[in-house]
């Protein structure tokens, strides 16, 4: 299909933009997306407007070099950034190419790198939006590739494209049919691979490579910083889906049973900031379906189960209840099990996990001393002592039993409920002012972190060990799903306090009415639409992202094509495992070798570009100096060449502009199919111009008149071509 190259170029341009859009959507960095989106959009007039000119190679090489340096530094800083760094490098390389001259090869490079960018997007995120954007992007990429191949074959063979011939309807129809067949075939292969390759085999044999590396921002944070002004995000993006079961497996979740999902336990307080203790715990590597024990003591009391599906990964933490006993993961993962925190490697592909936990009222033995200091404030101690005394309890912790401790804590919580206001607007603390004191004694309003900090500070001042816990408050129960839907806006902070009998209890000092207002899902048509969207998202997560071996076997059987056996053998036997870890060192070396090669090749490419650029600049400068010094006629000649530039302008205006880098004689040949007289006139103009420009001849009056006459003929012919086009037919003479 002899597409006019301009149309193919525009399609390639749009495809590149779509690829960048898909990747930035996956990466969820709005600033970067805005930057590259703007730069991409600005390339359009540079590329396609009549006054557009490619940027100098020097500038483009500098852009690529800077991007390369940034990517290398970022990757060296943390190997986890490899995918992001390489993808961003590809984007800047594409941007540089967009501002450069294009030939067939450049178009091909843009399309191939765009496909790589799509792979980068898949390695970055598994979001539904990404999946949907792929449904738009992949057909676009396919169509652009087909048209590029067709026009490229002709350009490569003949040295020029049949620029102005429109494809026939038959060709268009055939190509559409072929494209549909390709889409059908490729989709069938993708579905086959998706269904037939056994899951779990060979998982993690090359480390973390291939797993999504980035996550959406969630409301959850493993640190709490008080005293900054601002506003808390109220994003309703679903983060988790949680099913609560009792020991018999019965679903006992309901909207009336709010659930605190414990994420980070923060025990250290300093200068308005709560943070974790520096004890990350032990590492455990679990295979798919394997279970890890989270406690060394024998479980007592009733057991419950949380089935958690991750809809959008909220960082490294796994969310549990107060006293988790075991955890089972659906995919292989490396867990960090600390005394209080439970984490998973950021790049893990875990999508579902099940936590068995004890009823929170059962005492838990401590494996270490609970943090109790850090908040030395006489005013807070006085307030807490007064409140405890007002409740009729002894202020001396040694004189209180566990029930008295709990009563004392309740009195503090009641005080906060009654006398303080909940707001998501944060007020800045004065200089030198402790944010907890600011909350308790000056502003008397704040959000959950302030309430939790105030209670923890007061609890510690009356001799009860307390800590701030961040996680989610699950209150939205979907009856149809039988699951809690946990959103970013459900991020919450509360307090865990240790009673004198060793039991830890959860206390939520935030006013319950305000909490209900904040966390209860809104109603209305917008929310209904959002609900529909979430159901689609849920389907996506259930059926695609979290598709596992159980589901696969249910659909196609255990291993109909014996792929599992082959994979097992390949992973276990074929690649010389190391003595220690059992990972195949040949493959690891291969993958790392490819990475190093890619970096070295990119650096080499940039170096060569840089050298070419500078040598070109120096040569051009020397030439200019030499010409100016020895050729006083140069400015006069440049003036004489005006007819040539006028011709270029006329061609651009008529939509038949000469592509950058293509000679006028070649362009004249390209236009033979449009108008033979026009092509002949252009050829004459090229003769006169070349004599002046490259032969360095001063044009005679006769030559100048010939150039001007040819220009007039060109203008006349272009007018006729325009008229013919308006009337719907291009007359070929």
């Amino acid at each position: 299909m002899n597409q006019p190259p301009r149309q193919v170029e525009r399609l390639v341009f749009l495809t590149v933009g779509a690829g960048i859009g898909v990747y930035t959507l996956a990466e969820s960095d709005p600033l970067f997306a805005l930057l590259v989106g703007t730069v991409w959009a600005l390339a359009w007039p540079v590329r396609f407007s009549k006054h557009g000119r490619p940027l100098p190679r020097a500038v483009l090489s500098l852009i690529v070099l800077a991007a390369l340096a940034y990517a290398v530094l970022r990757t060296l800083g943390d190997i986890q950034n490899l995918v992001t760094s390489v993808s961003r490098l590809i984007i800047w390389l594409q941007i540089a190419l967009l501002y450069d001259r294009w030939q067939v090869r450049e178009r091909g490079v843009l399309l191939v790198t765009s496909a790589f960018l799509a792979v980068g997007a898949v390695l970055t995120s598994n979001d539904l939006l990404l999946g949907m954007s792929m449904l738009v992007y992949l057909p676009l990429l396919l169509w652009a590739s087909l048209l590029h191949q067709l026009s490229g074959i002709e350009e490569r063979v003949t040295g020029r494209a049949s620029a102005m011939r429109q494809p026939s309807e038959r060709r268009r129809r055939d190509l559409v049919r072929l494209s549909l067949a390709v889409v059908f075939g490729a989709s069938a292969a993708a579905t086959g691979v998706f269904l037939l390759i056994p899951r779990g085999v060979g998982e993690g044999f090359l480390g973390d490579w291939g797993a999504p590396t980035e996550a959406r921002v969630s409301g959850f944070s493993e640190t709490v910083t008080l005293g900054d002004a601002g506003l808390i995000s109220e994003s309703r993006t679903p983060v988790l889906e949680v099913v609560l079961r009792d020991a018999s497996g019965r679903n006992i979740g309901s909207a009336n049973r709010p659930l605190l999902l414990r994420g980070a336990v923060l025990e250290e307080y300093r200068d308005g900031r709560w943070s974790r203790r520096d004890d990350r715990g032990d590492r455990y590597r679990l295979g798919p379906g394997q279970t890890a024990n989270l406690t060394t003591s024998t479980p007592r009391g009733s057991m419950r189960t949380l089935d958690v599906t991750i809809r959008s990964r909220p960082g490294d933490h796994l969310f549990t209840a107060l006293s988790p006993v075991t955890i089972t993961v659906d995919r292989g993962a490396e867990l960090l099990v600390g005394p209080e925190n439970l984490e998973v490697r950021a790049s893990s592909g875990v999508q579902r996990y099940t936590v068995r936990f004890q009823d929170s009222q059962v005492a838990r033995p401590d494996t270490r001393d609970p943090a109790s200091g850090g908040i030395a404030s006489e005013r807070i101690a006085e307030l807490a002592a007064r409140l405890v005394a007002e409740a009729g309890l002894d202020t001396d912790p040694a004189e209180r039993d566990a029930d008295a401790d709990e009563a004392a804590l309740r009195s503090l919580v009641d005080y906060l409920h009654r006398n303080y206001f909940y707001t998501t607007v944060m007020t800045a603390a004065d200089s030198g002012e402790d944010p907890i004191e600011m909350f308790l004694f000056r502003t008397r309003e704040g959000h959950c972190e302030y309430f939790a900090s105030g209670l923890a500070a007061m609890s510690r001042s009356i001799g009860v060990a307390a800590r701030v816990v961040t996680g989610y408050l699950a209150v939205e129960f979907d009856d149809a799903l039988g699951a809690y839907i946990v959103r970013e806006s459900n991020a919450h902070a509360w307090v865990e306090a240790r009673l004198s009998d060793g039991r830890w209890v959860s206390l939520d000092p935030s006013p319950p009415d305000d909490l209900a207002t904040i966390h209860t899902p809104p109603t209305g048509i917008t929310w209904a639409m959002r609900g529909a969207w979430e159901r689609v998202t849920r389907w996506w997560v259930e059926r695609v992202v979290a598709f596992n071996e159980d589901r696969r076997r249910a659909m196609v059987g255990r291993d109909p094509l014996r792929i599992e056996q082959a994979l097992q053998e390949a992973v276990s036997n074929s690649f010389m495992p190391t003595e220690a870890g059992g990972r195949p060192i040949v493959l690891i070396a291969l993958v790392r070798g490819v990475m190093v090669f890619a970096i070295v090749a990119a650096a080499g490419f940039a170096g060569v570009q840089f050298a070419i650029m500078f040598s070109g600049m120096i040569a051009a400068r020397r030439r200019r100096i030499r010409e100016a010094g020895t050729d006083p006629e140069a400015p006069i000649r440049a003036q004489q060449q005006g007819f040539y530039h006028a011709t270029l302008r006329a061609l651009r205006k008529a939509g038949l502009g000469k592509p950058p880098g293509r000679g006028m004689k070649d362009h004249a040949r390209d236009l033979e199919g449009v108008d033979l007289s026009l092509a002949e006139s252009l050829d004459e103009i090229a003769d006169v111009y070349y004599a002046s420009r490259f032969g360095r001849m001063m044009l005679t009056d006769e030559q100048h008149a010939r150039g001007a006459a040819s220009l007039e003929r060109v203008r006349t012919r272009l007018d006729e071509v325009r008229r013919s086009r308006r009337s719907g037919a291009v007359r070929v003479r």
Partner: protein
Amino acid sequence: MNARMKVRRKYHVHAPGLAAIFVAILMGVGAVNSQNNLLFIAFGLALGLILVAGFVSGSTLMHIEAVRSEPPVGRVGEPMQIVYRVRSTSRWIPAFGLVAEEVGGRGAKGRRSRLGRVRAAITHIPARETRSAHAHVVPVRRGEVKLQAVRVSTTFPFGVLKKSATFTQRTTVLVRPALGPAPTAVLDQALAGAGRTETVSRRIGRDDEFYGLREYAPGDSVRRIAWRASARSESLMIRESYATMNADVVVAISFSGGSHDESRADDRDEQAISLAASLVEIARRRGARVRLVIPAAKLVVDSHVGGDEAASCEPIHDALARLDLDAIENLRRPRPVDDRNERTSRAVIVVHAREVDPSVAPGIAAHITAARASKNAAKRDSARIGKGRAA
């Protein structure tokens, strides 16, 4: 398609194809390692696209027939066109992005190619239809080019797999020597030596062109009586016509001279052949009868007499095209041009590949060397540029 035509179809190891397979494998390994379901889908798509590309290109070429039209005679430096008729015999599958090219054969491909790379693109052939592809080539060396086979290949749809079908079709293309600028002065000089100033002179004779009337004289043919004019003048009038008298021009080539080391044919010999061809052509255009004499090859060729004038020197050009200098023994040995019989009536021009050696044609022959001719042409060009500058 010729029933005896041999067809070979095969897939080619192609760098982009290897790269695509490598990337697909890398994605597969990544998917297995990470169990990332979207990566499994991406791997499946990559695999599917490679398979579909293989199927599309393969099935396209399973139903392709290509025939080369009889190629025209070419000339060095002048564009020529070779036409291929490519037919898709498939009932359903159209063919896209085909490249028809010459493969195999001496002088058709490679560094010593006479035609350069002969390729033509066909973007689309609907099912059960035929399309023509035109390969435009500019021959770079004279001689006979043996074309062996036409290969039709495609990398469509994604450029990752290359499949080809090769159709054996043997034929020969003759490439004549280049026609370049030749000094006409040497022709004038040769004509002067033969006692003429023009290659064509006219006298009263028996051609068709009318000259005048005269009174009848005894012995005149009755057929030449102009009856109408005779009736007006009351005496018999005879119609007289012109007759054209063509000069005879002999163009000879001498390869003698040079050192012993230069026994093999080189560019100067080719320049001499090209110059001789140019002189032959100039003489033909001026109406002369031309004879080519190459003593070293014992070759004497006359222009075709009595036929179409435009084609009259074709035997000479063909002989020059076929002249194989490497087959001539003692190429550099001086050999006299044998023009004894026509010395007084024929204009003789001797083209020397190296320095002028008057002994090969002593007397009234005009001599020119290929090197001098090209130098003169360069001088003319520089004079023109200089004139332009001065203006």
